[in-house]
C-alpha cells in the first residue's frame, strides 16, 4: 500500500472493528478514524451466553472499551447507525439516514447473524437465538416465566446457554444430532467428556435434531427427531452457528463466498476495502475462524496493512469456552491429530489433552489448566519440537520446558 490513507472508516464495532481502531492508533495512525456501529455501544459478545445471560453483569460491564476511550483516542464513534452502502469508487460510505462519510479506506467488521433452521412451527412459537445483546435481553426477560427450556445445537454457544440456564434452575433439554458435538474442535475424547458433563449437571442430552414445534396450552411442544412423544418446554433457543453478514460487501462487488474472502493481510478483492473478524473467510485455505481471538488479531493485521507495516507475528488459533464453572481452552488444530496424550487424568480437572500428528504437536485442549494450552500455543507458534511424554507428565514444569 502506498502512503498511509488519510481517512479510514471502520464498519462494525465488534472486537474485530474495535481492535482495528485500537491497533491503528497504537501504531501511530494520525488520520481521521471513524467507527460506525449499528448497536447501542460497542460491546463484547462472549459474556452474552455466560455472565450476562445469568444476570451477573450489566451492559456497561461488557463494553469493549469504556465510554471515554473513543474520545481520548480521537475516534469518531457513530452509534445506532447502519451502513447501507459502500461506494469505494467514490471513496464514500453511506449511512441509513442518507449521510455519507468520506473514506480512503474501509474496514468491514460486520460480523454475522445467528443462523436459523427451517423448523416447522418455529415462527409461531418464537424461537430465540443468541448473537446480540438484544437477543440476550429477550432471553433474560423470558427466564422468569420459563422453567423448562430446549436448546437446539450443542456447539459452543448452545452448550454455554444450556449450562447457564441449568445454573439458573431451568430444566434443560439439549438436542444435537452430532455425537458428540465439537469433536472437530476439541478432539473426540474430550468432546465426549465435555458433552457428558451436561448430563451429570442434570441436563437431558438428546442425540437428535428438531423435527417440529407447536404452541399448545401446555407450553411449546417440541418433537425431536426419532421421538414419538413431544417434549413440553417454555422456551426454545437455537444455537446452530452463524451466518456472515456479507450483504454490504456483496453489493459493493467484493468477492464473497460464505464470508468476505481476504488474504493474509485482510485485503478483500477491492484494494480500498479490508475485512476483519467473523465476516471473513481465508482466500488461501477457506477457513473461517469465528472466534474472539481470531477477530482481535485480524484487526491488528488490518491495522498493519493500512499503516504499510509488516503483519504482526501469526499465532495458532485459540479459543475458550466457559460452562458448568469450568474453563476450557483450545489451541491449534485438534482435528489434525492422529494421536493424543493426556496431562493428568481425563475427567479429573485440571487436565489437558495434547494432539500429535506423528511426532509433531498440532493442538491442545485444557480443562481448568490454561498453562498447558498457553504452553502449547507457544510451542506451536515457535514450531518447537517437543516430546509427547514430557508434556503428558504432570510433574514437568511447562513454563521451564518452553524455555529449554
Amino acid at each position, binding site marked *: 500500500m502506498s502512503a498511509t490513507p488519510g481517512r479510514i472508516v471502520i464498519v462494525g464495532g465488534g472486537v474485530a472493528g474495535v481492535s482495528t481502531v*485500537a491497533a491503528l492508533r497504537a501504531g501511530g495512525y494520525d488520520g481521521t478514524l471513524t467507527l460506525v456501529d449499528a448497536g447501542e455501544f460497542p460491546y*463484547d459478545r462472549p459474556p452474552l451466553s455466560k455472565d450476562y445471560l445469568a444476570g451477573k453483569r450489566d451492559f456497561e460491564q461488557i463494553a469493549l472499551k469504556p465510554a471515554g476511550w473513543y474520545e481520548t483516542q480521537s475516534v469518531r464513534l457513530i452509534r445506532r447507525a447502519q451502513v447501507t452502502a459502500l461506494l469505494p469508487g467514490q471513496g464514500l460510505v453511506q449511512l441509513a439516514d442518507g449521510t455519507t462519510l468520506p473514506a480512503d479506506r474501509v474496514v468491514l467488521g460486520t460480523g454475522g447473524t445467528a443462523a436459523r433452521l427451517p423448523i416447522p412451527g418455529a415462527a409461531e412459537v418464537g424461537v430465540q437465538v443468541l448473537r446480540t445483546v438484544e437477543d440476550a435481553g429477550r432471553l433474560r426477560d423470558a427466564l422468569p416465566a420459563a422453567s423448562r427450556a430446549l436448546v437446539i445445537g450443542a456447539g459452543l454457544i448452545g452448550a454455554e446457554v444450556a449450562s447457564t440456564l441449568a445454573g439458573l434452575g431451568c430444566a434443560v433439554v439439549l438436542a444435537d444430532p452430532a455425537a458428540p458435538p465439537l469433536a472437530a474442535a476439541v478432539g473426540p475424547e474430550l468432546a465426549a467428556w465435555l458433552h457428558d458433563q451436561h448430563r451429570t449437571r442434570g441436563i437431558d442430552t438428546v442425540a437428535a435434531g428438531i423435527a417440529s414445534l407447536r404452541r399448545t396450552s401446555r407450553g411449546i411442544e417440541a418433537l425431536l427427531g426419532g421421538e414419538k412423544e413431544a417434549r413440553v418446554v417454555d422456551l426454545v433457543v437455537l444455537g446452530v452457528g452463524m451466518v456472515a453478514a456479507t450483504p454490504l460487501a456483496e453489493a459493493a462487488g467484493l468477492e464473497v463466498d460464505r464470508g468476505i474472502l481476504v488474504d493474509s493481510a485482510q485485503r478483500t478483492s477491492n484494494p480500498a476495502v479490508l475485512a476483519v473478524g467473523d465476516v471473513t473467510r481465508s482466500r488461501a485455505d477457506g477457513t473461517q475462524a469465528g472466534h474472539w481471538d481470531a477477530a482481535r488479531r485480524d484487526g491488528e493485521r488490518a491495522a498493519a496493512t493500512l499503516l504499510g507495516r509488516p503483519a504482526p507475528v501469526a499465532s495458532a488459533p485459540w479459543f475458550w469456552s466457559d460452562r458448568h464453572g469450568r474453563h476450557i481452552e483450545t489451541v491449534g488444530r485438534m482435528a489434525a491429530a492422529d494421536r493424543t496424550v493426556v496431562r493428568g487424568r481425563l475427567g479429573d480437572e485440571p487436565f489437558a489433552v495434547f494432539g500429535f500428528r506423528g511426532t509433531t504437536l498440532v493442538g491442545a485442549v485444557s480443562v481448568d489448566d490454561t*498453562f498447558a494450552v498457553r504452553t502449547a500455543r507457544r510451542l506451536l507458534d515457535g514450531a518447537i519440537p517437543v516430546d509427547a511424554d514430557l508434556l503428558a507428565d504432570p510433574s514437568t514444569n511447562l513454563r*521451564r520446558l518452553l*524455555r529449554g
Partner: protein
Amino acid sequence: MSGTGIRVAALDDIPEGEGITVDRAVTGTEDDIALLRDDDGSVWALNDTCTHETASLAEGWVEKGHVECPLHASRFCLRSGKVEGLPATRDAVAHRVEVRDGEVYLFPNETSS
C-alpha cells in the same frame, strides 16, 4: 508506608516466568498481591485480580515484561499495570517491589518509577 517495605517472599519462592499470591492480610492492600517474576529474573507486583473478570494474575503467564491473564489472556504491563490487550479495559494497580539479599519487599500503593 515504611521506608523498608514489607517482606513478602524469598526470591527463590517465585520461579521465573511465574507468580505467587500474597494475601491482603499481609500487605494491607485492597486486593491480594500477585508477585510476578519475569523471564529476566526481575520481580513485579500487581493487584492479583484481573480487571476483566475474576482470575488470579499470579496464575498467569509471565513473559517479556507482561503477564497474560489465565482466563481470557488479557495482557498487563508488569511495570505499570497498564492493560495492553482486550478483553480487559482497565489497568491493574502496580506496586513497587525491591529485592534485597534474596528477599522480596513490597511497597504497597507506591509506583515503580
